[in-house]
């Protein structure tokens, strides 16, 4: 079906098996993320807007374009569409409860002289995780401490959005207590922008989690949530080992609520704090 010159029926045409493998290889070679054989629907949902935008007939046509022209920009769009993850403010509230109730009281005591804390949001996407942490720290009375929150992602596009710290109503309506919305956001029309007080604690950088991370640390807490599930076992182990190197002794690693890590006892002690699972660096 064609509407206004745009083909909108891409999702009705099945992705040919050789194209499915081609797309899997593209995503894997650029990000290390493994998209398994049952992700047809995910490819269709995520790539349909690109197919439509380019005026193509199907995802198969998109694959042909990528093969023929080696269009770097389109290739980036495809990889980013397949790897950009949902995020929202204060996702997994139990994690923030554990940080407030256990980690911060300890750090406030241990660092009372240097008053310096470092955190890392390792798959930051559009920034809600890093900014949630920033707000949580300000709410704990740490505004006069030297606090650094590094926020990284493999996608330049999401990082550009994250730096702007502008969010739509649907984004600030989810997970964010109204009291924090009133306190830390400025509204301009339909856009809600975080205040400088929250933004100044966060620094964004592009980073592929497969590269060496040793120079980034030491951190007191690393969020690496809802991203490990996409890596194969070997890559996941390598990343977990690298993350361990970036943590200070006793530092915390937090994975996604549905993620687990195996064979890491050498590097981490698994602890349950309230409803949160925390991996404490040995």
């Amino acid at each position: 079906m064609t509407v206004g010159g745009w083909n909108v029926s891409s999702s009705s045409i099945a992705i040919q098996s050789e194209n499915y493998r081609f797309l899997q290889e593209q995503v894997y070679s650029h990000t290390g993320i493994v998209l398994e054989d049952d992700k047809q629907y995910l490819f269709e949902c995520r790539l349909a807007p690109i197919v439509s935008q380019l005026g193509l007939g199907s995802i198969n046509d998109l694959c042909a374009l990528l093969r023929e022209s080696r269009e770097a920009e389109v290739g980036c769009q495809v990889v980013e569409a397949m790897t950009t993850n949902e995020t929202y403010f204060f996702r997994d509230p139990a994690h923030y409860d554990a940080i407030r109730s256990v980690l911060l009281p300890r750090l406030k005591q241990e660092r009372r002289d240097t008053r310096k804390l470092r955190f890392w949001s390792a798959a930051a996407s559009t920034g809600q995780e890093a900014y949630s942490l920033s707000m949580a720290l300000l709410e704990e009375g740490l505004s006069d401490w030297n606090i650094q929150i590094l926020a990284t992602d493999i996608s330049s596009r999401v990082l550009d959005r994250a730096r702007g710290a502008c969010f739509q109503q649907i984004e600030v309506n989810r997970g964010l207590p109204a009291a924090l919305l009133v306190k830390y956001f400025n509204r301009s029309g339909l856009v809600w922008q975080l205040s400088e007080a929250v933004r100044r604690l966060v620094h964004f950088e592009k980073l592929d989690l497969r590269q060496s991370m040793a120079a980034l640390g030491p951190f007191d807490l690393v969020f690496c949530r809802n991203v490990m599930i996409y890596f194969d076992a070997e890559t996941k182990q390598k990343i977990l080992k690298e993350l361990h190197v970036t943590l200070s002794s006793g530092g915390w690693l937090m994975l996604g609520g549905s993620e687990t890590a195996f064979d890491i006892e050498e590097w981490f002690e698994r602890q349950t704090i309230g409803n949160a699972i925390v991996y404490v660096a040995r």
Partner: protein
Amino acid sequence: MAKALVVDDSRAVRMIIAKTLRDLGYEVREAANGREALEVIAVEKTAVKLVLADWNMPEIDGLELLKQLRRISTPDSLAVVMVTTETGMGRMAAALAAGANEYVMKPFTRDILVEKLQLAGIRP
């Protein structure tokens, strides 16, 4: 079973919110405006633990309802969540100052409502 009161002049909105609250384990009452809500509270007294109130309603609006409820309750004894198309910062701040436990902007999804209640520590 804890009781919740849904106050909105839209029957459709009341139905959507009421279903979500029933799924969470509440016994649900409904009112079409602030006056009706106060009548329900007068009968049910302290059995109602949660009120979800629209802002713009005939007779007594949501903010006035909230103010009247706070004369006889605290945020701990009766949770009041505003669920409204009023999305101005000033309105939101006014509701919080008047004692609202939380504030949900319309349009919203079931997940947004459930998460807001969880975040505010509101459970049946």
